[in-house]
């Protein structure tokens, strides 16, 4: 029943009509979509890390096909370059009162150019979860800053997208013990706010977009022998983006 509800919510968000009248709306949608791809999703069940537990992970953020049409032009989008991008991410469990768990996390991508695209990215998060038993509930806040350089308006140029983004989400998860593994399905409902600043290198023109919207996540965490961790998650920003994130990690005790 819960999975159906989550599925319905996600599909409703995915099918939300995105309509606009002007080329400017199309351009701002593209800024929003490319910024939201960088958003730091939960990609973790609430209360996953006990105090002192360090999770070191590598994530894969998938990029769906993005139609770069603006007016009668066609911009080069992220999906023209790659179907996914990697993101390293650390998370550390912190001391917390009885029945609670706390964590902080961070992610950093150095500005290394791959296929003419470079992203300099830093993100941080902090979360608190109530963990009375198998059912868990969490609250998380996150923020990021990123600058990306890539060909957008013309193949030979390097246009720049600067993104500020922050948000918060409430999540709930269920821990199912299947020795030697643990399964933890979870879902989250949040809100995200972004400010994107796109600069066209050829003429210096700057286009800005601000967006505030819901973020819906549903995922499954798999832990093997309390060391190896894998997470798959679907993330939806209604009216903008639906995509998947994957994580493979190792838990240091």
């Amino acid at each position, binding site marked *: 029943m819960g999975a159906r509800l989550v599925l319905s919510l996600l599909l409703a968000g995915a099918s939300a009509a995105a309509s606009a009248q002007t080329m*400017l709306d199309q351009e701002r*949608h593209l800024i929003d979509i490319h910024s939201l791809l960088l958003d730091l999703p939960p990609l973790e069940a609430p209360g996953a890390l006990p105090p002192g537990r360090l999770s070191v992970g590598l994530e894969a953020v998938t990029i*769906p096909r*993005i139609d770069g049409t603006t*007016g009668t*032009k066609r911009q080069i989008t992220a999906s023209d370059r790659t179907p996914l991008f990697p993101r390293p991410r650390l998370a550390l469990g912190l001391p917390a009162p009885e029945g609670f768990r706390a964590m902080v996390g961070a992610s950093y991508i150095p500005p290394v150019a791959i296929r003419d695209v470079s992203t300099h990215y830093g993100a941080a998060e902090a979360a608190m979860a109530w963990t009375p038993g198998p059912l868990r509930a969490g609250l998380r806040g996150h923020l990021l800053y990123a600058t990306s350089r890539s060909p957008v308006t013309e193949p030979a140029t390097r246009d720049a997208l600067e993104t500020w983004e922050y948000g918060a989400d409430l999540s709930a998860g269920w821990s199912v013990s299947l020795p030697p593994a643990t399964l933890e399905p979870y879902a989250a409902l949040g809100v995200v706010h972004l400010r994107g600043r796109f600069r066209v290198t050829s003429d210096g023109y700057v286009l800005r977009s601000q967006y505030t919207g819901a973020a819906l996540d549903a995922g*499954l965490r798999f832990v093997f022998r309390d060391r190896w961790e894998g997470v798959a998650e*679907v993330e939806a920003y209604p009216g903008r*983006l639906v995509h998947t994130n994957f994580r493979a990690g190792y838990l240091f005790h």
Partner: protein
Amino acid sequence: MTPLHRLATAVAPLVALAACHADTASLEPIAWQKVAGPGPGGSVLGPGATGDFDERGNFTVRAFRDVGAVQDGSGTKIRLYYGGSDATADTGDPSCGTGINDSHWRIGLAESADGVNFTRVRGTETGGSILDLGTQVGAFDSYLAYRPFVLKDGAVYRMWYNGSTKPFNCPPGTLANDRRIGYADSTDGVGWTKHYDGAGPGGSVLPLGAKGELDAQQVGYVWVLHDGDQYKMYYSANDELNYWRVGLAVSSDARTWTKVRGKLANGSILDLGPPGSFDAACAYQPSVVKETDSLYRMWYRGCQAPGPFGGPSRGTIGYAESNDGITWVKIPQNGPLGEAITAGATGSFDSVGLTTPSVFIDGSTWTMYYAGFDANGVFLTGLARAPR
């Protein structure tokens, strides 16, 4: 439920949603609807009275809602500035016919409270016009003065207009080959003072471009925005092959202008369309609205093919958008070839072609006045509106 079933139940939604997607925005053309007026063929302004400066027709319009400066003091009315054709035939060339071709053109004003029913404001110049022909020796506007663009700029009304020393298309096949841009100003929008102190020929506003430039032969049909601390002049530019495009000039005082070379053909900012498009033969007469900091809209006249005597003919209204007012992208609209507005049905005043769109935002409504002409070559003014 076995653990395997649990796993399958949990994973199923993820698999179902594997078809991820990005919701990019779709364009929604502005839904223009022509509004029938009380004039002939559904026009909003019919021909003037016998003997008046606009006896044979009115055309090349500029309209806007003027707040607090109308003749009867009622507060706000739509002012329609237009070119009018009298019934003179000074050339004596019978091949020019009895239409507007060898007549003199001057500038007039009409006002309306509802935007549909207009009353002429009789000026003190020839035939009731508000801006007359130039009379000084060598004046660039000695035969034609038309296509007024009026900008209410604080307490000053500024007018840029087309002037020429020659009649239009008389003898047939010559069109008007001397069009220049004039400037006048006013404190009330009715009484005008011309200034012949520009950098162009005869003191007109803009010099012609060098050979090969987009404006090597003629300039005219301007639209001026007061955009921040800068004035932007979108002007129509005619090259040596008689193609019309849109060029840009900027100014800090609205009097001294510097041309800004565009990235398109011959330095234009709006170029002709590809063969077969509705604007393959001309793309000019811009009407520009800055709606937000990053959204400029332009309506313009497009011609699909040159007329039988060369130069643009017929004409429809096209549409383009820009983020900065400099780089423009044409946006297809609802017409069969992507036009915003096309010619009217047989019997309507605009059954053959459209010229000089003039667009402004009137509350929650887009408002466009334009000139249309029929098979007899009679030019009158029409109105179209669209929800914003």
